[in-house]
Structures are given as structure tokens and as C-alpha cells.
């Protein structure tokens, strides 16, 4: 055997081994196609994947593996042409087995050339990636669903933030709550949702820091919408970490609890009002049992004494007078109690108008003209504001306070009336149920006998008298009426004094502008 023959034998056996190798590969279908796409060779892998035996398939066109719709668009020939032109063509897609079932194939077609670079056939390598494809599809579908879910949640703003707090993602809920569209807001810093005061104190940064340190930051507070209006938001910021534990961003979930907050605030005001009404009821019960009882008891005692001393004419006359006085007092108390309780009813029906307090003062001065002249009193009134309220009730208020100053005086009374605007937080011991933020403070200052400052609250109670009946007349209802009127106007009244240093009455009425 010549050396050349030996090398040919070696060549043959090498190509045989190579052929056997390909034939026995199980995981890849490796097929030889001729120039026209006719199958010329088949391996075990091809049989395993496509289920045809070598005998069945040799001589068939490879388009037998393609679905009708792919054949319609001429996919087999397109791929072949591509391999012809570019040397190779790759494709992934659904293919058909012998039994008609589908598999997801990853296909590479490589052109085979002769020495003149003429294409003499193709090698087609196919891999069955069905399982991988299904798993990928499931994952993708699940991700899509998840994104869709987040995107379509309407009641929560769900936002993705970068580690620096830049908005990366937006959903319908966020648009609904905050008013921005996705295009407007993505790329901006999330601090745009915060009020100026909160930005000044660095709240957005503080919340991110808490989320960074503790994994989560929760807060409730006022936030700003695109149009500048505010909403009460409940916010949870959660840090997102990668596998190494480094922060890759934050999710921010915001809920608009404005309605809840408004309801809660309303409830608080309502509760405060109820408390007031409760204490008024208690006062009424006390008044009914004590203050009205007193003259009634006396009437009974006096009539008994008269019966027992019927023959003593002098005694009888004296005690008839006393009886009469008690009856009169009882009648006065009932009348003032009626006036007082009528105020609550009136305030529901009273004509609420814009009332100029300068007019009110003038009218009251005219009403009290005789008493003012009699007491040689001076009333010094500054410029007073106009408020929203009941003209009649405000008249009663001025009349009672000024009447009080005239009554509790030893020298010639001088009454200063002035006004200024104050903020709610400036009011000392401000009651919980005050709603307005700004008030007109109308100050009545006199030079009368005043009262001990420890009584500055109880003087507004029904029938509470600081002075003996012998020294000063009256039923003790005037200031209780004043308190009620001011409360009807959603305002507040307070008094201060030092004994003998005159009294100051502060009337706070909600600020109103024309």
C-alpha cells in the first residue's frame, strides 16, 4: 500500500467516525440538506426531536417541519436564501413534529461550499428549546401581569424611585392622586409632592434615610398635587436591595386619605361640640335643681310662715312682700333661662348676614343712652370690623358686655372698645372646636371693680354671681348669654381682670372679608 493509499484509508476512517459522531448526537437534530432543501441525511437527535425515522424522511423537503402559516410566508425558503447569501441563517420558532405536536426550535442553517465556493448544500442544526420557551413565556406573562396590575391600581400611587429619589415609574393611581401624567413626572425628584415647609425641613430626604436604614419608612401628612391643592397622604417607602444587599431604589406607595382625614377632623369638631352641649345640659340640670329651687323653696316657706302667724298682721304683710319678691325672682330666672335656651334655636334660624360692628356699637349706645348718662360713662370705640353673623345676637352681646361694665363700676365708667386681627394660635387656651384660622379680636376694657382672676371662667356660667344680690342686681345670666352668642358665631370669649383693676373681655369672631 502506498503512503497515499494509507492516508486515504485514514481519511475515510476519520470521516466515518465524524459521520458516526453526528449520527449519534442526541440533543441536536443535525440534518444535511441539498441545495434545494431536500433532506439527505438524518441523525438520532433529529429522530428524537422530530420523531421521523431516517427511512421516512430522507428525500423529503425540510419544509415538512414548518407550520402552514410559516410556509405561507415562505419562511423555509427565506431562511435557505439567507444562508445561501450570508453563509448562515438563524431562527427561533414553533416547528412541527411528525405527530403534529409543536416544539420550539432554535435553528441554524449553514451553507456548505465546494472548492469553487459554490453552495452544494446546507447543514441544519436544530435544538429543542420548548421547555425553556414555556418557562420564559410564563415568567414574561407573570411579569407583564404584575406590571399591568401595578399600572392599573387606581387607589394607590405606586412609584419606583432611584436611590437618589428620582421617579422612575408611574401608575394610574399616582396620576389620579397626584395629577401628573407619566411623561410629566418620570425623571423628576419625588420631593415635588411635598409642601414647601416639609421640603424646608428636609422631610423627603429624612424619609429616604429611614427607609435606607430601617428598610421602611411610613408617614402621614399633607402632600401637594400638580394643581397645588393638598391631599392627606399615607405613605410607605420601602428600600429595594440587590443580591449583594446594596440599595437599588425604593418603592413608594401613597394612599389618599384626605376624605378620612376630613371625616376625622369633622368628628373631632363634632365631639368638641357635643362636649360643650353636654356641659350645657349639666348646667341646665343644675340650674333647674338649684337656682330655680331656691325661690320656690322660699315661696313655700313664706306661705307656711304666713299660715302659722295668720293673726300677726305686721308679720303677714312683711312675709307677703317677701313671698312676692321670691315669686318675681323665680319669674325673672325662668324668663332669662328661656332667653338663653332660645338663643340655640334662634341661631339655627337667624338671618346670617355681614354685620358691621360699628353699627352694632352705635345702636347699643343709643339703647343704653339713659344708663350711660346716669352713670356719666364714656365709651371710646375704635374702628371695628365687620363679621358674618346675626345682627340681633351681636347686639345682645355688645349690650350685655357694656351693660356689665356700666353695672360693676364704682367711679365714672370708661369703656375702651378696640379690635385687631389675630391668628388662631395666638388665642390663649384656645378651645378645640374653633375651626377658623384667623379671628377679629374685639376687646372691651373697663375701669370697673373687676373680679379676681381665678373666676375668669366661672363668670360665664349660668346664674353664677360673684357679687351678693344686695350689692348688684341681676340674675347672673348676662355673661352666659354672651358666651352662647359667641359660640353660635364659632368664636370664643374670655375675660381677665385683677380685683379692682377693671375687667377686659376678649371676643374672638371668625375673620370675614367682604
Amino acid at each position, binding site marked *: 500500500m502506498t503512503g497515499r493509499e494509507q492516508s486515504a484509508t485514514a481519511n475515510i476512517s476519520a470521516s466515518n467516525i465524524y459521520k458516526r459522531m453526528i449520527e449519534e448526537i442526541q440533543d441536536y437534530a443535525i440534518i444535511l440538506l441539498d441545495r434545494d432543501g431536500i433532506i439527505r441525511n438524518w441523525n438520532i437527535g433529529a429522530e428524537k426531536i422530530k420523531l421521523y425515522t431516517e427511512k421516512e424522511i430522507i428525500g423529503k423537503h425540510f419544509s415538512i417541519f414548518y407550520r402552514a402559516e410559516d410556509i405561507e410566508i415562505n419562511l423555509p425558503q427565506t431562511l435557505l436564501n439567507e444562508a445561501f447569501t450570508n453563509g448562515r441563517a438563524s431562527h427561533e420558532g414553533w416547528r412541527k413534529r411528525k405527530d403534529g405536536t409543536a416544539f420550539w426550535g432554535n435553528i441554524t442553517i449553514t451553507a456548505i461550499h465546494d472548492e469553487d465556493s459554490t453552495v452544494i448544500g446546507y447543514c441544519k442544526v436544530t435544538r429543542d428549546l420548548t421547555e425553556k420557551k414555556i418557562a420564559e413565556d410564563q415568567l414574561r406573562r407573570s411579569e407583564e401581569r404584575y406590571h399591568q396590575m401595578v399600572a392599573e391600581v387606581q387607589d394607590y400611587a405606586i412609584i419606583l424611585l432611584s436611590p437618589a429619589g428620582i421617579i422612575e415609574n408611574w401608575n394610574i393611581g399616582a396620576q389620579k392622586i397626584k395629577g401628573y401624567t407619566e411623561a410629566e413626572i418620570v425623571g423628576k425628584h419625588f420631593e415635588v409632592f411635598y409642601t414647601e415647609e416639609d421640603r424646608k425641613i428636609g422631610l423627603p430626604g429624612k424619609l429616604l434615610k429611614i427607609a435606607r436604614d430601617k428598610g421602611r419608612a411610613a408617614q402621614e401628612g399633607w402632600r401637594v398635587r400638580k394643581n397645588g391643592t393638598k391631599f392627606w397622604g399615607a405613605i410607605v417607602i420601602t428600600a429595594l436591595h440587590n443580591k449583594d444587599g446594596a440599595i437599588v431604589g425604593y418603592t413608594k406607595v401613597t394612599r389618599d386619605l384626605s376624605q378620612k382625614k376630613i371625616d376625622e377632623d369633622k368628628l373631632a369638631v363634632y365631639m368638641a361640640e357635643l362636649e360643650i352641649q353636654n356641659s350645657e345640659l349639666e348646667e341646665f340640670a343644675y340650674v333647674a335643681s338649684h337656682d330655680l*329651687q331656691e325661690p320656690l*323653696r322660699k315661696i*313655700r*316657706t313664706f306661705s*307656711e310662715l304666713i299660715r302659722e302667724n295668720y293673726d300677726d298682721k305686721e308679720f303677714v304683710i312683711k312675709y307677703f312682700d317677701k313671698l312676692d319678691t321670691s315669686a318675681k325672682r323665680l319669674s325673672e330666672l325662668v324668663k332669662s333661662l328661656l332667653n338663653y335656651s332660645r338663643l340655640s334655636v334662634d341661631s339655627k334660624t337667624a338671618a346670617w348676614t355681614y354685620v358691621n360692628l360699628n353699627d352694632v356699637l352705635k345702636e347699643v349706645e343709643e339703647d343704653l343712652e339713659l344708663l350711660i348718662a346716669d352713670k356719666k360713662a364714656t365709651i371710646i370705640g375704635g374702628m371695628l370690623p365687620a363679621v358674618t353673623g346675626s345682627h340681633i345676637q351681636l347686639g345682645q352681646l355688645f349690650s350685655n358686655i357694656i351693660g356689665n361694665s356700666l353695672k360693676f363700676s364704682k367711679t365714672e365708667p370708661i369703656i375702651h372698645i378696640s379690635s385687631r386681627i389675630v391668628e388662631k394660635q395666638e388665642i390663649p387656651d384656645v378651645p378645640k372646636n374653633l375651626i377658623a384660622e384667623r379671628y377679629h379680636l374685639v376687646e372691651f376694657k373697663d375701669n370697673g371693680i373687676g373680679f379676681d382672676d381665678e373666676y375668669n371662667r366661672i363668670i360665664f356660667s349660668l346664674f353664677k354671681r360673684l*357679687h*351678693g344680690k*344686695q350689692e348688684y342686681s341681676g340674675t347672673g345670666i348676662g355673661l352666659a348669654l354672651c358666651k352662647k352668642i359667641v359660640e353660635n358665631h364659632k368664636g370664643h370669649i374670655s375675660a381677665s381682670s385683677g380685683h379692682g383693676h377693671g375687667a377686659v373681655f376678649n371676643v374672638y369672631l371668625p375673620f370675614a372679608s367682604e
Partner: protein
Amino acid sequence: MIKCLIIDDDLDDQEIFLMCLKKVNTDINCLTMSNGVEAVALLMSNTDYIPDYVFIDVNMPKMNGIDCLKILKNMARLKYAKFFMYSTTAEGAAVTESKKLGADDFIVKPARTAELKEKLTTIFKIVSEIA
């Protein structure tokens, strides 16, 4: 002679009280004061005066009966005096407070004088029996 002090701003009630007191026991010297401030001032300035019985109205201007009781109970020479609160109504808080401060009883001003006389008789009888 029994010494009695009544502190009440209501002049009618003072008069009725005195009238009933006289009917119950003629051997009584009774002083009347119109308010707590007056009564405290009297007891502070007149150190010889030691009443055996003190009746205090609860609702009075200037100083109410409870505050008055508090001050008088702290006066050493009134250690053996009996204190009675005296009011139109037995309001819960006032009753509790006065008992806590050491008042011997809380009397509701009755409409009928017979009732008051009866009450006063009982008070003096118990005390005289002890004596």
C-alpha cells in the same frame, strides 16, 4: 350658752334659720355673716370668739362655702366646733368635698320650717347627750 355662727349670703334664709333656732333652743347666741370673707375676717380678728356650731351655705359669692370650710377647719381653736354645710340642693360633688374636709353633716334647706326645726333639735340633742 351655746354659740352658733351662720354664714349665708341670703338674708331671707338667715332670718328663717334664726327663727327656727329660737324655737328649738332659746339659750342660743347666734351670729350671722353674709359671706365667707366676712366670717373669716371676724374669726381672725376676734380671737376670743369660739363658736360651737358653724352653719355654712355652699353657694356664696366672693368665697364659696367649701373654701370657707377649708379655712375654718384649719383654725386650731375651732377644733371642737361642729360644722354643717347648708344648701338648697345636695349636689354630689359639694357633699363629697365637704365630708372629706371634715364637715359633720350636709343639710338641705327644707321648704317646711318644721323640718328644719326637727333637724336642729336632733343636732343639739346628740351634742348635749355627748356633753
